[in-house]
């Protein structure tokens, strides 16, 4: 049985860690690095940093964030937000990122996925999808931090993305994120059934039981959490213990 990865997700705007509901009403939580370090020490398997104003500005400020983040954090780090070309990726990897997530730029030019995969390997390219439900069983992909419709069907897009070389999928439910009402399980299930690359479920975790539920019914390879950690309603240790108690395979980890 594969270990499900427990990932701490940090949405960043400028110097601040932020959190919203449905990706909007973004509240400042604090310093990204302070929180990142704490999550690492609590035993996060990975960290994801998303720059949520990058698309708006047409540039990203991930470099600075990643450079200082990689200081004392020794788990894989994925960064995304405003990644537009292969040069962006080169730069981010050089600064300490292990994987790079693309969304808006990939929708505009899907070839970008192959360009990055060919240069750095598929395992380096994460296709980030913001999914919003249209009707039961159908979801539409959004870009620009949940602001712009694309007209793309999520299942078709995820299949295409993997064909083009994406090594992993970061699947965020716009409907659930920030709501603490649990994951969009039909969405996760539909995507994990469609592709053979790892899928990270993101959006909606309110309590540890939500993770148990989505892993049992949706079978993602990893679960990303933000709100529950940023508002300190739980810790990585507690989540891990709850997963273990429920019989979910997760890394056995003593916090640092």
């Amino acid at each position, binding site marked *: 049985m594969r270990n499900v990865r427990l990932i701490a997700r940090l949405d960043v705007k400028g110097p601040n860690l932020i959190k919203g509901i449905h990706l909007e009403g973004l509240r400042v939580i604090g310093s990204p690095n302070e929180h990142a370090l704490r999550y690492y020490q609590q035993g996060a398997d990975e960290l994801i940093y998303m720059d949520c104003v990058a698309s708006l500005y047409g540039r990203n400020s991930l470099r600075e964030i990643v450079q200082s983040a990689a200081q004392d954090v020794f788990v894989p780090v994925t960064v995304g937000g405003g990644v537009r070309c292969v040069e962006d990726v080169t730069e981010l990897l050089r600064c300490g990122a292990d994987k790079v997530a693309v969304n808006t730029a990939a929708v505009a030019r899907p070839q970008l996925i192959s360009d990055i995969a060919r240069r750095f*390997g598929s395992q380096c390219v994460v296709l980030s999808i913001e999914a919003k439900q249209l009707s039961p069983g159908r979801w539409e992909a959004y870009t620009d931090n949940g602001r712009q419709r694309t007209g793309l069907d999520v299942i078709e897009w995820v299949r295409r993305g993997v064909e083009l070389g994406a090594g992993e999928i970061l699947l965020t439910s716009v409907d659930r994120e920030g709501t603490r009402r649990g994951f969009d399980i039909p969405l996760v299930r539909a995507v994990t059934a469609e592709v053979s690359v790892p899928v990270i479920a993101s959006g909606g975790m309110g309590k540890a039981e939500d993770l148990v539920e989505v892993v049992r019914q949706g079978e993602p390879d990893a679960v990303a959490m933000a709100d529950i950690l940023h508002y300190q309603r739980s810790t990585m240790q507690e989540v891990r213990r709850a997963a273990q108690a429920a019989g979910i395979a997760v*890394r056995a*980890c003593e916090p640092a």
Partner: protein
Amino acid sequence: MSLPEVAVIDYGVGNLLSVRRALEHCGARVTVTAEHRAILSAPRVVLPGVGAFADGMAELRRRGLDQVAREVASRGVSLLGICLGMQMLLGESEEFGLTQGLGLIPGRVVAMNCAACDGRRLKIPHIGWSALILAKGRRRWAGSFLQQVRPAEAVYFVHSFTAQPSDPGHRIADCLYGDLTISAAVARENVVGCQFHPEKSGEVGLKVLRGFLRQ
């Protein structure tokens, strides 16, 4: 007591920053370099790497660093290969046709078979945390660079190809992935390797690096 010194080979491939940071965190003085003299004079050398075997070997060859690596090994200096770096220690790889490796540990690098696991196809690449277990025939890790690691502690893997040393005695640690038993760590005298990323494996990974620094 002076800090242990390490040279990390820079051949244009891989996340050198993380490797450097992790080694420094473990108390080493790190030089990231492509200069032959600097590498040859270092008491310890690390060969990092991610990506394709053929590209990696080509980049090493271009800089004459394949020879340097072999020289380092022949002088009995401690050499650690990480991820692609470990794979390149072997004789050859079948990725994109047969490519010659450094030949420091006999064996071959092969594609991971999408073997069935509970009736489902295995996901390739192997990404994630997997537990280290003692390789067959091994009783303990004491005396090796894994000496501080306890069996079943997990480390972080990301790879699509896997090393298969010809001599089972060169395998120190394995990990189970579906039906596959993957070679996770290898050692042949002063030349050691880990398929996983110790710089990305949290505290366990740092223990591995410390173990290497003590050799």
